[in-house]
């Protein structure tokens, strides 16, 4: 079978299973007896094995098979979970990940057969169980999903109560069947089982339907055709066919469809689906010996329906367990989304143009036009929101690898520590999420290595031996805040300052004036490592400055707050989206500029006489705080004007805890703006972070508020 076209699906699904394995093994380490988790792991390993087998990746199949064996034993309580096992399992996981990434690059699993890992697995098994495990699957393994499914399966094979004899049909379908039967037509039931490894069940089922339709008319489906199309079935589906053809012909036609394990065919009689008709003689008793039994089971349709729906409910529950996060998704190339976004941006600009036009031509009786434009406005806003939402993904995809990382670090550093995560569901623009992983990893490693003390020191300072690291994410206005906090030693500002003076970053005198916060921020300077010795975890001085530049390139910022002996908190602030923001449009001379609304604290009109001077710098004193003033016209090299106004317009912006008053000439108003790059050649501009296109097609620049501090 040519499987190359399924490679993408295989890689995506493998990664999902690997993630699920990783998560569950973590849980298992904490709760070795958790049966749900063990089942979950078993299922994931089993799926991986099946997928690898189908795709012909023998080595990967071998490894996952042995993993499955181990879990089989764990499930049967023959083996107890201990930390050795967890280590081995993580080794296996790394090996599988290795396979998948090799497959991703070369479409082949490579030559590494991970014999050592497999041997470790088997040795463990031998040791724990005292005997060699038969590596063949036990029958129980076959029934991977749920008891209910296995019930149907096994009953199937014994031909005891074949599914087609008691299908949960809708009333309409029931009537149809009864009509056909009473009209003397020959109706047969077919129950088909796909093989377990079948990847495209829906497609196989469709082929079966097509094959069967050659022989007659399909009267009823179970599960419904729609459910089958959506793969909402385990391995089995049934249908009722009105036909005069030979059953063996039909059977062989069905079984010719690949990946179909078996098909059971038999005639259907009125008893099976007739509500009121009492026991009647079956039309062909000799061919259908199980009717007697079925009769007793299904004395009334209602009964059977109830039972069937119960079974299917259980099956669904079981299926849900198997895929805990089965949201219905379509994978879309990010480039396509970018295109869509660009087009929406253009639409918004075009709409803004129309709005501007309508306003200017209102005298000519544009009431109708205005109405239409308002309608258009509603549509574009809605469209914009939807496209934005499409681009938003939870940060979960990035942070879910961290618990494993902290666990490994904890063992490596011999410091017990826990990672407590919250807010994984917080959503961010896809581009931001893709790039935030590295900075966060740096911060966590930093906390684990430098923040958390070794258990002895912790005990001496009266802290619990196990260190704690919190990773918290939440949305705040137009920003997403991600905090990495630890309860470790905190930052020794004195030694940071000493180092800064040593490096010549500040003079001793300047150093005395600095606040603790300012000193802590030295840590973000390039090649400023505080680690006394270099470890392979952190301490090469390439950590925090990279974090800072990465975060800043995403339009965010990072701050540190620390208290000696209590711990440190790194706060990363990121814009919710990079593409479209709410902005305040201002005028400086005759030029228009945009200031991101999120950074604006308030707007004040101040009489010129209220301007005070501190160290020869202009400030205003506003409700108890001193705010330095920045004149936009000087910063932006505008020409001086003659007229000096009596009042100045001050837009107070803030960054972290500090505020600056930005003096502008005029306020235009609030507007939703689409952020555009200035073009590569002049992108590197200190005061301008980008540009936007206004309704009249003019370009306005966006002021980078951070540069004013």
């Amino acid at each position: 079978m040519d499987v190359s076209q399924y490679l993408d699906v295989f890689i995506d699904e493998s990664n999902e299973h690997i993630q699920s394995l990783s998560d569950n093994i973590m849980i298992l380490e904490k709760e070795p007896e958790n049966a749900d988790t063990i089942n979950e792991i078993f299922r994931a390993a089993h799926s991986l094995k099946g997928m690898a087998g189908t795709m012909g990746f023998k080595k990967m199949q071998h490894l996952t098979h042995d993993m499955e064996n181990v879990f089989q034993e764990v499930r049967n309580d023959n083996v107890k979970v201990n930390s050795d096992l967890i280590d081995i399992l993580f080794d296996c996981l790394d090996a599988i990940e290795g396979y998948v990434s090799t497959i991703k690059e070369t479409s082949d699993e490579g030559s590494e057969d991970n014999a050592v890992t497999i041997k470790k697995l088997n040795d463990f098994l031998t040791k724990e169980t005292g005997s060699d495990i038969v590596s063949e699957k036990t029958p129980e393994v076959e029934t991977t999903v749920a008891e209910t499914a296995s019930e149907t399966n096994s009953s199937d094979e014994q031909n005891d109560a074949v599914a087609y004899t008691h299908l949960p049909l809708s009333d309409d379908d029931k009537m149809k069947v009864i009509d056909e039967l009473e009209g003397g037509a020959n109706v047969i039931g077919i129950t088909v089982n796909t093989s377990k490894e079948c990847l495209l069940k829906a497609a196989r089922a469709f082929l079966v339907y097509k094959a069967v339709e050659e022989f007659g008319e399909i009267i009823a489906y179970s599960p419904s055709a729609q459910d089958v199309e959506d793969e909402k079935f385990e391995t089995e589906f049934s249908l009722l066919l009105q036909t005069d053809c030979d059953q063996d012909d039909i059977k062989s036609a069905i079984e010719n469809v690949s990946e179909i394990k078996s098909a059971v065919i038999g005639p259907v009689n009125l008893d099976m689906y007739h509500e009121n008709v009492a026991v009647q003689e079956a039309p062909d008793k000799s061919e259908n010996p199980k009717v007697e039994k079925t009769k007793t089971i299904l004395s009334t349709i209602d009964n059977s329906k109830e039972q069937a729906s119960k079974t299917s409910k259980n099956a669904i529950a079981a299926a849900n367990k198997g895929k805990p996060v089965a949201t219905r998704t379509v994978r879309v190339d990010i480039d396509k989304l970018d295109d869509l976004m660009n087009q929406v941006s253009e639409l918004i600009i075009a709409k803004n143009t129309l709005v501007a036009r309508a306003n200017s031509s209102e005298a000519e009786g544009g009431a109708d036009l205005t109405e239409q434009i308002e309608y258009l406005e509603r549509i574009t806003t809605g469209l914009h929101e939807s496209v934005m939402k499409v681009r938003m993904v939870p940060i979960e995809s990035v942070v879910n690898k961290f618990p494993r990382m902290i666990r490994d670090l904890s063992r490596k550093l011999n410091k017990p520590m826990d990672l407590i995560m919250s807010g994984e569901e917080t959503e961010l623009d896809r581009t931001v999420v893709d790039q935030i992983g590295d900075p966060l990893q740096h911060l966590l490693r930093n906390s684990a290595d430098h923040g958390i003390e070794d258990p002895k020191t912790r005990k001496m300072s009266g802290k619990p031996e196990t260190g704690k690291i919190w990773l918290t994410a939440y949305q705040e206005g137009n920003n997403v805040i991600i905090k990495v906090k630890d309860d470790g030693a905190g930052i020794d500002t004195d030694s940071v300052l000493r180092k800064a003076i040593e490096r010549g970053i500040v003079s001793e005198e300047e150093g005395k004036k600095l606040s603790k916060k300012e000193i802590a921020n030295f840590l973000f300077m390039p090649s400023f490592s505080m680690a006394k010795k270099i470890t392979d975890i952190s301490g090469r001085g390439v950590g925090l400055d990279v974090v800072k530049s990465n975060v800043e390139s995403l339009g965010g910022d990072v701050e540190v707050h620390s208290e000696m002996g209590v711990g440190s908190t790194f706060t990363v602030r990121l814009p919710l989206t990079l593409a479209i923001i709410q902005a305040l449009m201002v005028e400086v001379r005759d030029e228009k500029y945009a200031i991101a609304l999120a950074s604006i604290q308030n707007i004040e009109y101040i009489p010129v006489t209220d301007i005070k001077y501190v160290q020869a710098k202009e400030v205003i004193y506003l409700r108890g705080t001193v705010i330095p003033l920045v004149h936009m016209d000087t910063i932006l090299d505008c020409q001086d004007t003659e007229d000096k106004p009596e009042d100045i317009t001050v837009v107070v912006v803030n960054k972290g805890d500090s505020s600056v008053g930005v003096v502008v000439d005029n306020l235009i108003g609030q507007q939703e703006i689409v952020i555009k790059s200035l073009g590569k050649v002049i992108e590197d501009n200190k005061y301008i972070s980008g540009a936007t296109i206004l309704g009249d097609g003019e370009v306005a620049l966006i002021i980078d508020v951070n540069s004013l501090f």
Partner: protein
Amino acid sequence: MSKSAELDATAEVKKQYIVVTLGDEFYGLDISFVDNIVRMQKITRVPKAPTHYKGVINLRGEVVPVMSIRKKMGLQEDVITNATRIIILKLQDQGFVGILVDSVNEVFSLGESEIERNFNTKDSKSNFINGIGKNEARLISLFDIDKIATEASK
């Protein structure tokens, strides 16, 4: 155009150039780098940008920087007239860059034999020229696009 196409077929491989004017002189731009030619429109000044940048314009929803090739070559300040055009170049690394010219005349095909590569002027503007095309009575200075590109990023 059909004439030049015929010539292409018969003689050596010819390149097409867009002929523009700066003052009284004719300049040629390799057409393969030209994305678009637009009329003069409002240019938004970008504070703190290098002085040879006039600012940015809106080109079909994209923000494109516009530079003054006159300023770069040490010529007089641009005089904006009705004939002024912005030639949008598509550069490999720098993306779109617009340059201001006084007017756009025509498209011309030149073969290598019609281009004089050896010339000697000590003028700073010759830095941007890598050949002089001879066409009947006119001389057309050919812009070195690579040079413009590297200058653009300075």
